[in-house]
């Protein structure tokens, strides 16, 4: 094997990494990819941290959810801070949540609330929540391939089996789709686009007979996530596709044998996956909600968010490691004002009438469903947002942007149920106890997935970049 000068990019391809390992370059671990690291560790017989979670489902609330009106109520704060909601008791004595989250309350014995999350990377910066990289960006409405990879992309990068389904699926559409912008975070960044998630497409709609949107009369966003181009077109049967596939393989064999170059191999892998998605029953089934009991679909909520969460459970069953379900903002595509978490105006009616009930419905159904299938012990569920909202209520009855303190909810696999970690001050304005960074959150998720938080991944210059970005797992919420 000839190794080239300035070989940074080369080390990003699987073939080379295997070669690297074969060449015995164990001393160069830091500079090379993780798969060899894992393989090397396996070979050396040392033990990786045993992850309790086989998979994770992230429920992502875009726009900065007012978590002080959800998981960290301040009934004794002054009225301009306190808000309109009352706390209720949960399954765990001493822990309270918002009155509009009864299912969340019921599942508190399997959940942990972290009440002291904060970052200083700027409002609407979605990069920290997915990567743990807390630096302000020049531009929060585009992504760059020099950014660090998301947790899901790290899972995809480390994934050893080229299964039918990828390790990382992002639903119901790319982050920012509803506003026709690309928000940073979910991507593979410097690892390369082949570790980007498989994005589904959504085509949401509202009920035809729904009344015009007005305060107190929210419209429900319907729809299901779909993989683009994954439904066989008219006149194309599986047989015909299979026969075409046979032809293309026969034709390509020549070139591949002759050339065997990396670019071809990489494309071959994606084509193989695409074929499987189109033809294999298990892959198709994951997205087929008609196979589900209609009653269960009702319980998840016949919303784009609820149906996506149900698909998420099916994907986890099919072995997908990292599934994201985003509650996007659909202002531009659908001119809907109410259905997002960026509640500068009418925070309380929006939360009471729409956001909280539908979130709670889906969350409760997801946990019930996972539990009844015996999957809750190996599936982690995280409810998080990109930032929080101001303690003080503004003149429009809303709350504005705030990154200095907000809450994140964990449940399921590996979580010490009934835990509250960290605390905000009396107005939920700043952290009063045990500050937690987004890097700590990501690292906790890595730990739960059994990914060593000390892991580094190579950037474009082949420098080892720690996936933890300085974060540490929150051991107190781990079972």
């Amino acid at each position, binding site marked *: 094997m000839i190794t080239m000068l300035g070989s940074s990019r080369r080390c990003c391809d699987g073939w080379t990494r295997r070669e690297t390992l074969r060449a015995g*370059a164990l001393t160069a671990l830091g500079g090379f990819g993780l798969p060899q690291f894992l393989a090397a560790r396996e070979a050396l017989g040392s033990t990786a941290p045993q992850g309790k979670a086989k998979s994770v489902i992230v429920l992502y609330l875009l726009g900065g959810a007012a978590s002080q009106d959800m998981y960290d109520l301040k009934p004794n704060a002054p009225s301009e801070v306190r808000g309109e909601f009352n706390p209720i008791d949960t399954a765990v004595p001493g822990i309270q949540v918002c009155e509009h989250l009864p299912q969340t309350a019921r599942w508190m014995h399997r959940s942990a609330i972290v009440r002291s999350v904060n970052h200083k990377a700027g409002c609407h910066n979605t990069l920290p929540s997915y990567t743990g990289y807390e630096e302000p960006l020049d531009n929060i409405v585009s992504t*760059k391939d020099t950014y660090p990879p998301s947790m899901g992309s790290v899972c995809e990068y480390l994934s050893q089996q080229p299964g039918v389904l990828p390790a990382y699926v992002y639903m119901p559409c790319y982050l920012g789709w509803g506003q026709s912008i690309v928000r940073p975070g979910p991507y593979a960044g410097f690892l390369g*686009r082949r570790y980007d998630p498989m994005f589904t497409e959504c085509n949401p709609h509202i009920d035809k007979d729904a009344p015009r949107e007005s305060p107190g009369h929210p419209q429900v966003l319907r729809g299901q996530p779909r993989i683009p181009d994954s439904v066989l077109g008219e006149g194309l049967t599986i047989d015909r596709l299979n026969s075409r596939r046979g*032809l293309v393989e026969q034709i390509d064999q020549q*070139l591949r044998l002759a050339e065997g170059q990396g670019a071809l191999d990489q*494309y071959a892998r994606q084509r193989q996956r695409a074929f499987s998605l189109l033809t294999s029953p298990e892959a198709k089934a994951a997205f087929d909600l008609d196979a589900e009991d209609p009653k269960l679909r009702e319980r998840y909520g016949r919303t784009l968010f609820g149906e996506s969460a149900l698909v998420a459970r099916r994907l986890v069953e099919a072995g997908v490691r990292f599934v994201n379900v985003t509650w996007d903002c659909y202002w531009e595509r659908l001119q809907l004002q109410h259905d997002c978490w960026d509640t500068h105006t009418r925070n309380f009616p929006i939360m009471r009438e729409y956001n909280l009930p539908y979130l709670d419905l889906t969350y409760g159904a997801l946990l019930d469903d996972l539990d009844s299938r015996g999957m809750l012990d190996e599936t982690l569920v995280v409810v998080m947002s990109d930032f929080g909202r101001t303690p003080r209520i503004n003149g429009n009855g809303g709350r504005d942007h705030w990154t200095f303190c907000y809450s994140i909810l964990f449940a399921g696999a590996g979580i010490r149920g009934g835990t509250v970690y960290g605390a905000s001050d009396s107005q939920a304005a700043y952290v009063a106890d045990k500050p937690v960074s987004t890097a700590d959150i990501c690292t906790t998720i890595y730990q739960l997935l059994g990914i060593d938080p000390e892991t580094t991944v190579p950037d474009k210059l082949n420098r080892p970049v720690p996936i933890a970005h300085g974060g540490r797992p929150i051991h107190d919420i781990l079972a």
Partner: protein
Amino acid sequence: MSRRSTSRFRRHFAGHCALALVAGLWACAAAQGGDAGPAATAIVSLGVEPCEITLSGNNRQQQLLLTVHRADGRLLDVTRLAELSIESPGVARAVDGRLAAVADGETELTVSHAGLERRIPVRVQGCDSYPPVHFANDVLPLFSKLGCNSGGCHGKASGQNGFKLSVFGFDPAADYDAIVKQARGRRLFPASPRHSLLLAKATARLPHGGGQRMAEDSGDYQLLLAWIAQAAPLGDDDAPSVAAIRVSPSQRVLAPSSQQQILATAVYSDGSLCDVTAAATYTTNAPLVADVQSGGLAETGQVPGEAAITVNYMGHVAVVAFQVPRPEAPAVYPDLPVHNPIDELVWSKLRNMGILPSELADDATFLRRLYLDTIGTLPAPEEVRAFLSDPAPDKRGRWIEAVLARDEYADYWALKWADVLLVDRKQLGERGAFELHRWLRRQFAANRPYDEWVQELITAGGNSAREGPVNFFRAVRTPEELARNVSQAFLGVRIECAHCHHHPFEKWSQTDFYGLAGFFSGIERKTISEGRELVYHAGYRETRLPLTGAVVPTRPLDGQVPSDLETVDPRLRLAEWMTAPENPWFSRLAANRLWKHFLGRGLVEPEDDLRTTNPATNEPLLDHLARQLAADGYDLKSLMRLILNSRVYQLSSVPNDSNRDDEQNFSHYYVKRMPAEVLLDAISQATGTSEVLAGYPPGTRAIALWDNRLPSYFLEIFGRPERNSPCECGRSSEPTIAQALHLMNAPEVEQKISSAGGSVARLHDEHSDDARIVEELCLAALGRRATEREIDVARELFSQAPRREAAEDFLWTLLNSYDFLFVH
């Protein structure tokens, strides 16, 4: 050279582990022992560096570099193999190829190896005291070497656990303050230096997050200890500073599993020299080929290839280039055909590496490659036929001329440069993006000299709705960003690193960065109406360093302060400096970009990161291309012509046994996926349809689009860039599952294949027979006649399905094949 000394040579080696090498040498020498002349591997001389040694101070050591020269011209490092003896052991002693001071005096070092002997005078002085330690010259390099001030540790912006150093030691005053004064001075304990927190942490005597960085018996420890004992002096302001470092050897051909010592010498501003081998930092870019330890000992592995070792001392860098040839290199390298000087330079490199190039690509492959690489367009079936049937021996050259003269040339190259110049509709508005794109297209249509249009761009001013290039100053808005983008896009210097700290791999400092930014300091923008701005130079302004507020003189990299900054638009002076023929970066970057475009890989990678520490894989070739470009008056087509006519460009992508793994010496053509726009056009062309691009006349080519935000799922998933970094790196050719799904199953692609006006329908309507359908579809999609295998595959297909359906399946198969998707 006698038999006797050769056998001594072997005996000497026998005690060491470099057995594989030695056995080979011995076998060879023995076999030729009876010949009259000296064997090729016979040792003819012994070189010693340095040739005289002065050690001043009781901590001083001198690294030796001992090299034997063989009859065949090969050089071998024997630093650790030669015998060293000192006449007066009371004056100095030799350890591991190093000489250390013992007591003042003069003596002589005798180096003997393989029967040869060299005597070197040695002088030791000032041994009774540790010489004064200089904070910036002695202590800071130690922090860099041990990684204390790296970005992942105390060097990061927030420091580490309360102790913050400037990254790579770029700010000695701040570092001195941090160590000596901050934390109430608790880091040093001059009363008992050994008990200083700094030493306790660094040696891990006290718990240290970074672990043990030095041992108590090390020279590094002694240095820090001495510095603290001397009451932690900052050092004399007038003390000579490092002006450069020299390394020896600068390049070498090495055998697998061998060792090579590197000697690093600092040259101080007063001309004095000092051995810094032990203090310098070493990094390799290819650890499998050659790895390097602290102390400068490099070791090659089992993998042939090339490695560049970067030697860094006090912000000065030098590079050592190693080559490890393939062991099974052909004994007699053939004479290869040469079309032009490019071939000679590439063959010479391949000969060194023991690699044979692939065969010349066949005519059809060449033609398709030429079209796709030069004009982003598939050759039409009639063009393929005409070319294949042209019997003239010079036809490739003539067709190269014809393709360079096509209209699509301007479209395709404007598209490429629009990426680099950030022609983004979102940033510039429709009018701005349109005007900048149109201006770019005109430059290529007229083949205007590169230096001319870059000058016009850099100095543009006026109404952005009328003057295309003005929009460059709208996409990039601050002097800092302009410095960064102009430097990266036209010079290949990543000066942005020096925005915040000293460049980690280069000599650039913040002063260099702000010196460059100063050229753009007076640019102002006034809004005329929405999306239109007036951009003008409003008079020169001083630039200040953000940290200290010190005024930074405006000057180009490594250049002089222009005398008339106050009276002219300073950008003029910058543009003149940039495009001057003697500018070391301007033509190199352009040449490297073109090379990468056509050959698939830059001579330097990434193509826009030119620096000493990132050497070209074929330096003479890059040098030649850059000179040629400048000599031809920056005529880009002229350089393309040279590249396209070279045999190297025309090589097959099918590798042979010797070059299968070569990815950087251009021994065969490296396949690449078509870029998004080219692929979309190619699908339309192969299916005989035209893509409907919203808001554009039918038949508009995707490569001719000015609007990078035109909604197109196809262009998005196939890697159209966002145009937010001043490079070509935003354009991705990485495969994704969405791409594969789309090509296989998208209704849009299926519709093209089965379109009523498409090529399948046309052939079917013309009642073409099976063979003709197969022939035509192959010519249209793959630019060549069908292979035997394809004909077989098609025969079976056509026998099983109705002709039209079979033809559609066949075209689908072609569009999903590697032969179609890749330029090969």
